[in-house]
């Protein structure tokens, strides 16, 4: 039941407690308690709105940065990661397998600021061996949402 509730919430953050209760054959009180519990033990981390900034006048530049790092003695990847994710500019951070170790996404309002952040904050860290920055030119799909115009309902009148 928890998994079902979470899946529903992951796909649609707009639903009211009441609707969640109906969909999971539960009551509003039960759902409220469950959500509190899941927030307390860190299963639910937050809620946000997916925005296509391109449609607004605000400038947002996103970059993916690959980092090759050498973990220092006594502090593994986690310690380096912590030093990186604490920067407010860092949107997400992953430890990955492959030709590099950490994948960072940065968001800023100009490319210069992103570049400056990489060169002054990331590249200068002791354990960072190499960086490779990819600027995102266009977002097609993000968190399951496509940024293309949505098709209108073109279903026609039919006898069924």
């Amino acid at each position, binding site marked *: 039941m928890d998994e*079902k509730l979470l899946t529903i919430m992951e796909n649609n953050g*707009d*639903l009211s407690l009441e*609707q969640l209760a109906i*969909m999971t054959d539960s009551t509003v009180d039960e759902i409220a308690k469950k959500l509190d519990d899941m927030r307390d033990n860190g299963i639910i981390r937050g809620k946000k709105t997916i925005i296509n900034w391109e449609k607004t006048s605000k400038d947002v530049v996103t970059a993916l940065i690959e980092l090759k790092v050498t973990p220092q003695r006594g502090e593994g990847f986690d310690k380096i990661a912590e030093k990186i994710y604490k920067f407010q500019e860092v949107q997400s951070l992953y430890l990955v397998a492959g030709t590099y170790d950490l994948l960072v996404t940065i968001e800023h309002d100009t490319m210069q600021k992103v570049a400056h952040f990489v060169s002054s904050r990331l590249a200068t860290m002791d354990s960072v061996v190499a960086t490779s920055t990819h600027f995102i030119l266009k977002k097609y799909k993000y968190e399951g949402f496509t940024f293309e115009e949505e*098709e209108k309902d073109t*279903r026609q009148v*039919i006898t*069924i």
Partner: protein
Amino acid sequence: MNFNPDNFINKTVTDMQPSGIRKFFDIVAQMSDAISLGVGEPDFITPWHIREEGIYSLEKGRTYYTSNAGLLELRSEICNYIKKFDLDYSPSEALVTVGGSEAIDLAMRTVLNPGDEVIIHEPSFVCYKPCVTLAGGVPVTIETKAENEFRLTPEELLEKITPKTKMLVLSYPNNPTGATMSKEDLEKIAKIAIEKDILVLSDEIYAELTYVGKHCSIASLPQMKERTIVVNGFSKAFAMTGWRLGFALGNEKIIKAMTKVHQYAIMSSPTTSQYAAIEALKNGELSINTMVSEYDNRRKVITEGFNRMGLTCYQPKGAFYVFPCIKSTGMTSEEFCNKLLESQKVAVVPGTAFGASGEGFVRVSYAYSIKQINTALERIKLFVESL
């Protein structure tokens, strides 16, 4: 001599009534700001992996007819897929048709002699009666009841069987009521079909959209495979309405006879659709599950919504329709729908479009987004409160 087209139109066709759904929605089409909960097809687009396979088949130049009965690979996949409903068929017992609708028409034309009676439970999909009539048969209707959750009972069936009865049409999960029949319900019907020696046409197009329990096909019951024509298809399960692809399964001799009619009327079902359908059956499980759980969420929200505003609505177990009772408003179904459209611009279908026994009910489709459903429910609530 003046040409009068009326003199040239077959009398049976002239006498056929236009569908009540069509009549109503021709009005809706002219209202730009109306919300419709009337459409009887999935709001999902065919999953991309299936569309892509159709496109690929075109790129490869697979633009010829297929064999009359349909691609052997597709028929094999159908037989493999249908095992999930405890049905065991071989490709020679399968015919690929232009939607479930063609399979229904074929079955009637293949089986019926003039005057043969076909029992149809109502409310139900609008095509059975005209198909029977066009094939020279006589439709005999049974009104299923809300208190029985619109299931067909053995008593009701026995009452309508005569020496002329040749076939029973079973349509579960049901459009428009969302009713389903359990294995126990079907066993009672099967017993009668065997005793009275009648055929069953089981339209299971909504089988995948079963939310409570597991869909049971009457053909899976002992001695029923041979006397059942199972109709199913891709439209509802895989959101493939526009591809026009369905299939019939049954006794090899009956399927062969149906194939004869099919080959003269249609030749073969659309080739592109058949290739896409193979992909749907092979890898469509995930897409089906995603859509089914989304429908299920909506089903609960919409049923609860109607019950809260005082329009009694039993919990439908299948398809994507709810069938709330509007008798408490004192209006007929048609009045209710017209006034609702006029005052709140929400379109739903009068229950009477699906047979006289639909009086006092309206069909509401939940093949719409939760957001649209919520807006429509709010408006319907305002309408009911204003009465």
